[in-house]
């Protein structure tokens, strides 16, 4: 079993504004990086990687905070993104045990499963809270492009994460 990093309240306090900054970047810089009208979801990427590297407990807490910022900054219904991100973190975290975190298929697993769960839950909750929204049409239009984009970004993002982890806390990553 991979070791759990201890929960640090100060880290969480610093994390809250940092996640806010990331959410702002997603709403602005994300538009510049749109591909076929699909924008990258930095917050989802971060949470999936966080879950895989540091466990589901931390991943879900970060998902809750990050989701709050996404909903708050978009003036949308609070809680929807949080629940969708928490679900993605929870499901992706299931595959964490017994798998080497540096395995080359991990980014694919995280991006496909995590993004799919996130989209499904988000669509479902949006349909419940937004009666006029046609969710099936949106699902068909977006899913495949977003999956490909998120997987590609995950391949870029994950090595950066490994590198930073090894530089900051070399003992934190145990493979196998």
């Amino acid at each position: 079993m991979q070791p759990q990093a201890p929960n640090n309240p100060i880290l969480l306090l610093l994390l809250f504004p940092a996640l806010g900054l990331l959410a702002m970047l997603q709403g602005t810089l994300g538009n510049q990086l749109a591909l076929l009208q699909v924008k990258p979801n930095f917050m989802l990427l971060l949470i999936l990687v966080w879950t895989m590297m540091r466990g589901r407990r931390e991943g879900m807490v970060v998902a809750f905070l990050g989701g709050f910022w996404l909903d708050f900054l978009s003036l949308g219904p609070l809680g929807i993104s949080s629940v969708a991100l928490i679900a993605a973190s929870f499901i992706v975290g299931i595959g964490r045990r017994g798998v080497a975190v540096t395995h080359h298929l991990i980014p694919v697993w995280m991006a496909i499963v995590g993004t799919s769960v996130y989209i499904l839950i988000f669509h479902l909750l949006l349909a419940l809270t937004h009666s006029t929204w046609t969710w099936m049409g949106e699902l068909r239009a977006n899913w495949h492009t977003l999956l490909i984009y998120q997987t590609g970004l995950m391949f870029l993002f994950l090595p950066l994460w490994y590198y930073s982890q090894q530089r900051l806390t070399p003992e934190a990553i145990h493979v196998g």
Partner: protein
Amino acid sequence: MRNRSRPRSPSDLSLLLITLVLASGLLWAMQRSGQLAILAKGLSQLTSPLQWRISVETLRLPEAFRQIAQTQLTREEQLALQAENKQLASENIVLQEILRENESLRSQLGYADLNPRFTFMSAHVVGQILGHDPHSFLDYLLIGAGISDGLEIGMPVITPLGLVGRIADVAPHTSRVLLIQDVSSSVSGLMQSSRVNGQVVGTSDGGLRMQFITSSDPVAVGESVVTSHLSASLPQGIPIGTVLSLEEQRNSTIIFAMLRPAVDFSLLEEVMVITNYEPLNEAPPLEIAPESRP
């Protein structure tokens, strides 16, 4: 790393999951009942300036990258001109931004002069939630003006080129604009030449579709569509788009007109909000700026 905490059981994880989901639900309920208004106001006052700054800076990024990519000087020349290039590039970016803003404001001013009956509030676009990422299934636009600027839900949002949408939600310093291309948006439209009325709705691919047209109506591709006098919530005469194609329904006399929006929503930087429009059926028509005429 040694784990100093006690071993955690799966039930701990389930408890955390349930707690976080319930907390999310509680946030939603409190938001709906208005109990988070004060907290949201305070947080919005903290984040709005930063959000606006990030938005402005990210808009400059492509231009900066383009200039860097176009620099094909030798290493020596680069070293010799490095300081000057940096300064000029920086000044150029700033000046272009000012020029663009100036042109936009001039255009808005001209539009406002043509329509003296209405009061316009100019606003920067501080965040775009366009496209179809997981958090943008609804097509919204965030603008840097809110309750403190006198904005209210339902106010029309336009540019000199045409209709953008309506204010869907307001915060102290920001507002959310529901774009006409959103699937939940519906606007009464009028074909300018044939005078055929219909309903313009957003489509899931970010386009516009005019419906309630019959095959006997003399509509044509290329015709301009403006807001109709039948619209109770918008002034009539605002450009919506032009007819791209006509789609017939099998075994039906109903046809759809697919429209090209008059406004490119992905390039919006400045918009105008009509702050004094009273939604009446007999609203005065808006004059269309000459440059926005097809």
